[in-house]
């Protein structure tokens, strides 16, 4: 996205401490990316922990992965990829001043997030029902676990998907806020920084899921 189309005449949105819209846009974008770096590092650290213990107990992890339904995970992956697509489209549409369509695209994005969370909810409750609680709460008798520390796999599973799910919820909240502002007419071809910022956040959340899916569902 080039910044050349920002003209200095539309300065209504420029905050007091910025000289012009370009400076504001560049700062905002850099800020978002820096924040994304912290998100990636945070998930990165769990992945390191996952890697270490997967290396130590590959058979146990494979037993855990077998308990998950990869088909549900796969559907969720598709849902999120599609939502990333609609998110990207909404920015394009706002840049072309097609506000109504952009609002539609945002609404679809929220819907996809909701579908993701519903599927996740059913996965979790199903696991609880089967006795696959995290860590020491795992019901050894009910689950017929081969590995005494299978609970650790589910510890990772719930921590990673839970933290990710929390990000999806936050993302949905932010996109709802965007939707309201879009309908209100705050965004147009000269001003769309918040949409782009939340968009970047949403893409990163998707990207993290694309790492989590094979690691949790397909491993072993």
């Amino acid at each position: 996205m080039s910044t050349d189309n920002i003209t200095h005449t539309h300065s209504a949105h420029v905050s007091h401490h910025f000289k012009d819209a370009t400076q504001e846009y560049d700062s905002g974008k850099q800020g978002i990316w820096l924040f994304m770096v912290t998100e990636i590092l945070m998930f990165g650290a769990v992945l390191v922990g996952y890697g270490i213990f997967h290396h130590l107990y590959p058979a146990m992890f494979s037993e855990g992965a077998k308990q998950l339904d990869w088909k549900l995970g796969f559907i969720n992956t598709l849902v999120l990829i599609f939502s990333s697509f609609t998110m990207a489209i909404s920015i394009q549409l706002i840049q072309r001043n097609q506000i109504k369509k952009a609002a539609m695209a945002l609404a679809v994005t929220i819907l996809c997030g909701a579908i993701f969370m519903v599927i996740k909810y059913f996965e979790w409750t199903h696991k609880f029902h089967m006795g696959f609680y995290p860590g020491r709460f795992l019901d050894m008798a009910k689950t017929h676990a081969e590995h005494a520390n299978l609970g650790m796999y589910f510890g990772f599973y719930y921590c990673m998907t839970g933290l990710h799910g929390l990000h999806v919820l936050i993302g949905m909240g932010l996109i709802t806020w965007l939707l309201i502002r879009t309908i209100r007419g705050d965004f147009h071809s000269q001003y769309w920084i918040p949409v782009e910022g939340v968009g970047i956040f949403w893409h990163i959340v998707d990207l993290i899921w694309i790492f989590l899916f094979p690691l949790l569902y397909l491993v072993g």
Partner: protein
Amino acid sequence: MGHSSSAHGENYINCEKGLWSWLTTVDHKRIGLMYMITVMFFFFVGGVMALLLRLELFAPNTVQGVGQVLKNGDVYNQVLTYHGAIMVFMVIVPGIPAILGNFFLPIHLGAKDVAFPKINLASWYCFMFGAALAIATFFTHKIDTGWTFYTPYSIRTGTSTVLMVLGAFVMGMSSVLTGLNFIVTVHKLRAPGMTMHRMPLFVWALYSTAILQMLATPVLAITLLLLAAEKLFGVGIFDPALGGDPVLFQHFFWFYSHPAVYIMILPAMGVVSELIAAFSRKVIFGYTAIAYSSLGIAAVSFFVWGHHMFVSGQSATAGIIFSFITMLVGVPTAIKMFNWVATIYKGSVSFDSPMLFALGFLFLFAIGGVTGIMLAVLPIDVHFHDTYFVVAHFHYVMVGGTLMALMGGFYYWFPKMFGKMFSETLARLSFVFIFIGFNVTFFPQFILGAMGMPRRYFDYIPNYEALNKISTVGSWLILTGFLIGLYAIVQGIRKGEKAPMNPWGAKTLEWQTSSPPPHFNFDVEPVVTAGPYEYR
């Protein structure tokens, strides 16, 4: 801005009135002051804890009365944990960046504010919320894990690990947001002519610190979340009973907390660079070396965490590698020391109180530095690890370094922040007490450590009594020093003479605007044509 607001006596303090205008302000200067008040409050609480610890250690437990100030080991351990956690997470880490950095980084760059003023305010609320969570543990089951939260102790203890850890997590968010703001501000909001190489070294130090805050804090955040999950749901990652690894926690923890040591000391080095140049009226020696050694320290500091774990059971090879890299990180630190001393050479040195604190910093940091090198040497560390030698070392760096610089910086910028002068006599007196008291308190602890007294001990064998007594007496001198300092500050704010625009004759941008600065820092946006230390 067409008119000059400061000409009418309007400044950032009196432009709006009422508590609400402070709580909702997005002015970086006001946020800096709000941080100042909260950090001072927490410093007071943490300080009282320290005095209690020292009082308890005045005599072994067998001595009635003074040897049993704190009822038992549990109470001692709780006080010890609060002292550590409060001083680290609520005083030293936010100290210089959030108070002086918030106030002066935009002014140093000639900007009107930081890049994201609302996020800046949000970071203060994050900090307050996190601190509230941490303090809330005091009214539940308290906390006794030590500020390091080592597993499996933190999992097994009956105290409020989860609440404390969530508090630290939220304060970490605040730290990340401040860092993010600083990086973007430095990149995007510099005034015309303010190139990166014309930035004051304080800004360079804050910039390096901000990078560390951004890169290291997320790892601490997730580690603390996993620890909370471990405690609540027994996920098993750090729990040996489930095949987890308690030492992994230490790796994760120090991966943040070693860079955090530099989060604490780099801003102090920045302040000292400013003070030495200003009070020697001389261009800083080796500007580039100091600026880039900050970045160098920041980079290397990510690869030395294992030197906290030489006896933890990590492999001997890992120990050797970490020791080697730690030696490398010593070099840029030494360079800075030499540069500061060289800056004084052929200068015009005044002994105003901020300079005394800066010289005190050099003195104490030199000792903290050489003992740091000793601790990096493998077999020496095997003996000194977790003894009072380590306690003395990091107090020399954190208190003798960071706190000295914070005090010095505070007195240096006091006229700018409040538009008043403080009593020079009281400030000097405060320095004398703090400096002497500090050495009396902590130097004996080096010897105690060499003799083998382990840290976090509620009681000790009789050989250690004499030195512990000296140390406790020193803590009262420090207390006196800080009380005098507090009085000097309060008196200065209430009754101080009006401060001129540039009382010290320094060259950086904040001295080119009125004292206190107007709401938007400068009446006319400055255009920079030269470096920050052009004393010719």
